[in-house]
């Protein structure tokens, strides 16, 4: 998995590519939490992700909770069909902001 961070005027964009699994999720979680320390608005571009396990979901949950507690905003863009399916079966689609 690779993560590319882009800092824009009003937000940080994390472009994620590859598998978000038990062995890579810590890297995503660290990047999300670091981004939310720098700015209150975070976009996660998930266009390059087709695979997310429960370990990966935990990183997104942690990010969502952190964004909420800081009155910030975390949202996902370009979410692929397989990942949408995982969000649907786990109920994550009900609280994640997906554009």
């Amino acid at each position, binding site marked *: 998995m690779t993560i590319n961070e882009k800092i824009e005027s009003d937000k940080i964009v994390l472009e994620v590519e590859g598998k978000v*699994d*038990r*062995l890579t999720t810590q890297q995503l979680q660290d990047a999300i939490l670091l981004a939310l320390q720098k700015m209150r608005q975070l976009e996660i571009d998930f266009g390059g992700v*087709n*695979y*997310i*396990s*429960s*370990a990966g*979901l*935990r990183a997104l*949950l942690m990010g*969502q*909770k952190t964004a*909420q507690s800081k009155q910030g905003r975390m949202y996902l863009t370009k979410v692929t*069909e*397989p990942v949408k*399916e*995982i969000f649907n*079966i*786990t*109920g994550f689609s*009900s*609280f*994640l902001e997906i554009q």
Partner: protein
Amino acid sequence: MDRLSVEAKVENLYQITDYVEEELEAIGVPLGHITSVCIAIEEVYVNIASYAYKDETGKVDVEIDTKDSSINIKFFDEGTPYNPLEKMDPDINLPAEKRQQGGLGIYMIKKIMDEVEYEYKDNKNILTMVKGF
């Protein structure tokens, strides 16, 4: 029927998922199915690698069989007897702030696969999962 045996450590995850991916590709299972089956495989494997042997190490065997457009995958370990299917399903309607970490993996296995069965036999935990393709 094909079988792989690895030491039950989380860092060996890709040995298992790469093996399952290659086997399923070779028999022409559609890519979307391979991805979702691999997610279920990860959930089972990480669970065994994290809990089955406590502080010791042991083996995990995975066996793949296909017939009549159906994938049959079995996991074997000789760790503490444990039926993961008895774990209560998480409440998936809770908002983020009320969600606890954990508990989702087993639930995802049940949702992704068509059938999941557990048995304890000959000192082994055996988890059998079936999915049509």
